[in-house]
């Protein structure tokens, strides 16, 4: 019996050895949903983090990309960066236990997690432990209004995106005399959906738009019929949905069934930019607008996107870079640059480097103006785009200076699709 136990311990120490790694290496805990209804998005995000690791730990010739020229982090004498990946399954309690496990495992910083609800819970654990938590891809505005010292968000939040939507409606009204005044808000009930819906409602009132229908529903529902019926009855000029993938599919199918044709549908990202959204829905997706911090047609103005996409495809099994992976990549690179600037794996020094971080827009693959955190830990230099599905592809339509296509207005009716 004793022999068996000793053999098992020897075997375990053997397989654990590479994970523990050498002392000077930087270890970062990464949590994403790898099972459950958003698993594909989580897998793509992890592929994006692996793309960033590939660039950081190996030599690459990508002009303008920080940390690409050398192997490892120069600020830490060429230390390599490794990650420990955890699956939070979309549930805050699982996110917390995964984070606790990783902190016990000695990670120097945490990164993730797409679901705002998970980030909200997990970042309180890291705050207590005094370990930085960097986020690239969660959009609930509340995340950076909690006064946390160790939490930083590189990507935009829904308040910023919603502001972009209202700027667009205002510009569009002025340019085309369109008179779009009434809004319908449809959102699911997780932290992200609820925050998005209430932010839109608040901003609409502040900016003089009338919200004639605001509907919250249980996420991953089996039917959206009564919701669509209410929207059809009120018929707002612009519909603003905040939904994850399964609900976005169900909503469009139900809208088709009940012949509900909004003049404009401006989605709050998420399900509407899932890589499978257009390929799966085909014609049904035509005319849909979504906000996004990224679109592949930006490759014309940001040439680095092409090179990064090639490396990303190696890690994602051939899938192309899309919105969430682009944000995940950008966020992780920002964390790595901060650790490199800190020249240490001490959590407080990393935090200080994050506070002082200043990456110019030219070093990024997203159209942000740069990465520079405000006192609340929110990157203040973010910028988004609005894109519309035209001929089976997302095409940037706003801001007008970045637009690759003209807006199709009103969006095609079901009979026209």
């Amino acid at each position, binding site marked *: 019996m004793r022999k068996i136990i000793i053999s098992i311990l020897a075997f375990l120490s053997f397989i654990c050895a590479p994970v523990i790694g050498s002392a000077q290496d930087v270890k970062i805990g990464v949590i994403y949903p790898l099972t459950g209804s958003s698993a594909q998005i989580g897998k793509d995000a992890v592929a994006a983090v692996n793309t960033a690791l590939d660039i950081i730990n190996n030599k690459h010739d990508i002009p303008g990309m920080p940390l690409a020229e050398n192997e490892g982090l120069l600020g830490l004498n060429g230390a390599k960066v490794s990650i420990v990946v955890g699956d939070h399954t979309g549930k805050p309690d699982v996110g917390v236990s995964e984070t606790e496990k990783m902190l016990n495992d000695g990670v120097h910083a945490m990164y993730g997690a797409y679901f705002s609800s998970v980030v909200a819970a997990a970042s309180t654990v890291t705050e207590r432990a005094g370990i930085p938590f960097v986020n690239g891809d969660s959009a609930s505005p509340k995340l950076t209004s909690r006064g946390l010292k160790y939490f930083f968000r590189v990507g935009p939040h829904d308040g910023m995106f919603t502001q972009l939507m209202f700027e667009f409606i205002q510009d569009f009204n002025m340019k085309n005399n369109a008179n779009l005044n009434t809004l319908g808000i449809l959102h699911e009930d997780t932290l992200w959906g609820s925050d998005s819906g209430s932010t839109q409602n608040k901003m609409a009132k502040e900016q003089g738009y009338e919200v004639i229908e605001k509907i919250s529903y249980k996420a991953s529902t089996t*039917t959206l019929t009564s919701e669509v019926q209410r929207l059809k009855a009120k018929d707002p000029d612009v519909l603003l949905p905040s939904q994850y993938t*399964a609900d976005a599919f169900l909503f469009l199918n139900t809208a088709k069934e009940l012949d509900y044709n909004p003049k404009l549908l401006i989605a709050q990202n998420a399900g509407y930019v899932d890589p499978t959204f257009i390929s799966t829905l085909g014609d049904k997706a035509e005319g849909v607008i979504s906000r996004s911090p990224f679109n592949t047609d930006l490759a014309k103005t940001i040439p680095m996107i092409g090179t990064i996409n090639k490396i990303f495809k190696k890690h994602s099994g051939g899938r192309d870079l899309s919105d969430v992976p682009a944000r995940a990549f950008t966020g992780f690179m920002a964390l790595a640059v901060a650790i490199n600037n800190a020249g240490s794996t001490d959590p407080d020094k990393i935090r200080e480097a994050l506070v002082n971080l200043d990456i110019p827009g030219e070093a990024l693959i997203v159209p942000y103006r740069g990465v520079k955190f405000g006192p609340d830990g929110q990157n203040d230099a973010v910028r988004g785009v609005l894109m519309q599905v035209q001929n089976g592809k997302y095409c940037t339509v706003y801001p007008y200076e970045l637009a690759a296509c003209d807006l199709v207005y009103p969006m095609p009716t079901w009979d026209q699709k």
Partner: protein
Amino acid sequence: MTVEIILQAIVTGLMMGLIYALIAAGLSLIFGLMGIVNFAHGEHLMLSMFTSFWLWSLLGLDPLFSVPITILLMAVCGVLTHYLLIRYILKAKMLIQICATFGLSIFIRSVAQLLWTPDYRIVENPLMEGRIELGTIYIGQPQLFASLICLLAFVGLYWFVTKTETGLALQATAQDRHAAEVLGIPSDKMFALGWAIGLGCVAVAGSMMMNYFAVFTDVGINFALFAFVAVALGGFGSIIGCLYAGIIIGLVESLGGLLIDPSFKLLYVFAIYLLVVIYRPQGLFGRY
């Protein structure tokens, strides 16, 4: 709120209710027969939808025509489930039975994710597409057809269980397995048949839903939740109870969402469920 809109909600609620009912019937049949709650029911629905999807994707068979194949494959899956797992836990404690089917649900979902990735898939351009317009009421053809087929399957199931010799043998086994065995009814085979029919019901509902619903590895969870509610509401083991309960759930969900507030539509369903559990714990049509 006009009469047309309310009528529309009733029609869509009815159609949804019939689908819930058939899914619940499979669950109820298995419970009524051997007292086992199949926590993997949602995953069996997911497997049915994937079967229907792959038959379309690989062989070009529309879900409408592939229903018999899906039923057959799911029935085989049911028989295998019985012989490989359930028969070993028939006499075990309830907690072990719950853990076994719950474990099966995680196993099926994980294997599905491994094999087919967590992507969302729909059948493009199915034969059954478009809608029927009755004045201002719109009825989605796939939904209408799905609910009618589910109703037909339900009637067939009811007829089989109450009118055929095998169905009566099933009922006898459900009532007293030992007495039935004394009379020469092999309970083991009856249980396997019960699983085959239970999963066959799910196969019909899953195939029909493929005409308008996206399939992904977690698709079954919410439908299974409604199925559990329907079974408890209609009465454990009562097939006809499932029909009424499914329709009640569909209507309450649809009308409550339209007339009061869609945010609370699940609340209305569960409020009715709670009332029934408190005042009539055996369910609307249950005997126990």
